[in-house]
């Protein structure tokens, strides 16, 4: 269909199949910030990594193959983290520890909204 798209109002989409449900977790705000997300992300490292690699590939593409911004994120990310307010900085440190990903990458993941409003 050529834009503008016309709607197709459905009345039978609910409930979707159970396979589309998402898992639930409790995050205990009484715990030290660095420990709050450990149980949530400990098995999610490879999936987060795949997503970050896609982001980096995109950034590299729009800057004509330059790795400068990607290198900046990896190298300066940890220092960047020190500029962020608590408890968020410690929460991100905890997530980096639990997933085995670089702190710079986790910081980048958490600011992707600001980055991609371009």
């Amino acid at each position, binding site marked *: 269909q050529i834009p503008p798209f016309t709607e197709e109002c459905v009345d039978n989409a609910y409930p979707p199949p159970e396979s589309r449900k998402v898992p639930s977790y409790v995050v205990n705000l009484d715990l030290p910030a660095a420990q709050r997300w450990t149980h949530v992300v400990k098995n999610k490292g490879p999936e987060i990594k795949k997503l970050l690699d896609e982001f980096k590939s*995109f950034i590299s593409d729009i800057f004509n193959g330059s790795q400068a911004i990607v290198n900046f994120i990896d190298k300066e990310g940890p220092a960047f983290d020190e500029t962020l307010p608590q408890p968020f900085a410690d929460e991100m440190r905890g997530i980096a520890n639990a997933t085995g990903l670089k702190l710079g990458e986790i910081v980048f993941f958490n600011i992707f909204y600001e980055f991609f*409003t371009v």
Partner: protein
Amino acid sequence: CTSIVAQDPKGTLYHARNLDFGLFLGWDIKNNTWAVTELLRPLVIIVDFQKGGQTVFKSVNFAGYIGILTAIKPKLFTLTMNERFNKDGGYIGLMEWILGERTGQWMGFLTRQVMESASGFLEAKVMLSNEEMLAPAYFILGGNKTSGLYQQGCVITRAREFVVDVWDMESANGWYILETNYDHWSAPLFLDDRRTPAHHCMGNMTQQGVSIKGLHNVLSSRPVLNKLTTYTALMQVDSGHLEVWLQYCPDPCIPW
């Protein structure tokens, strides 16, 4: 994204949203999908933030992302955030932050603070309107009151440094307010008009049809549902109910 706050004839307030993300981030020509959207779906989780064993608020997150894009504070208010694309975008705020000018708040952290500390709709509205931010945004806020002038649903249009507009449900439609990714006083880009179809489907549903099921159906209607849609979240403030469904848009489906 598409966010809707709506009230049924009895005055029960619902808040629902589609989260669409990944435009231009890698189109898979074999499967007709966006790479980032596909990679985001396995990361979608519901998080119950608790203090002293009690729920403070519940949110829909991507695992590893600690900010808030969709959340409910049971019995008090609901919040969703839609992207606002602007020349004065987040990359400028990001550059300022890197260069040491750090007066603005990160969007996800601001919404997290609002969910943790605001005691109601009005306080949340003030916080979301007044704080300087690093990126522009639309905040869609639902409260727990539905009568007359105290009807609590609004869209806050934010520039980085100031509030551009606050649009209340009363002046929008009366029984619902709807936001996609364009200023409500301007026409959406004709290539990306999800607003008109969403209004048509809300009109078809009528106020009598407002419910978790009805809003899910509206948000599952193409092109409100599209290839970028990652999940649909449905919230009912008085009961604190939050449910989330991963969304897929089988072909034929438009890319955004």
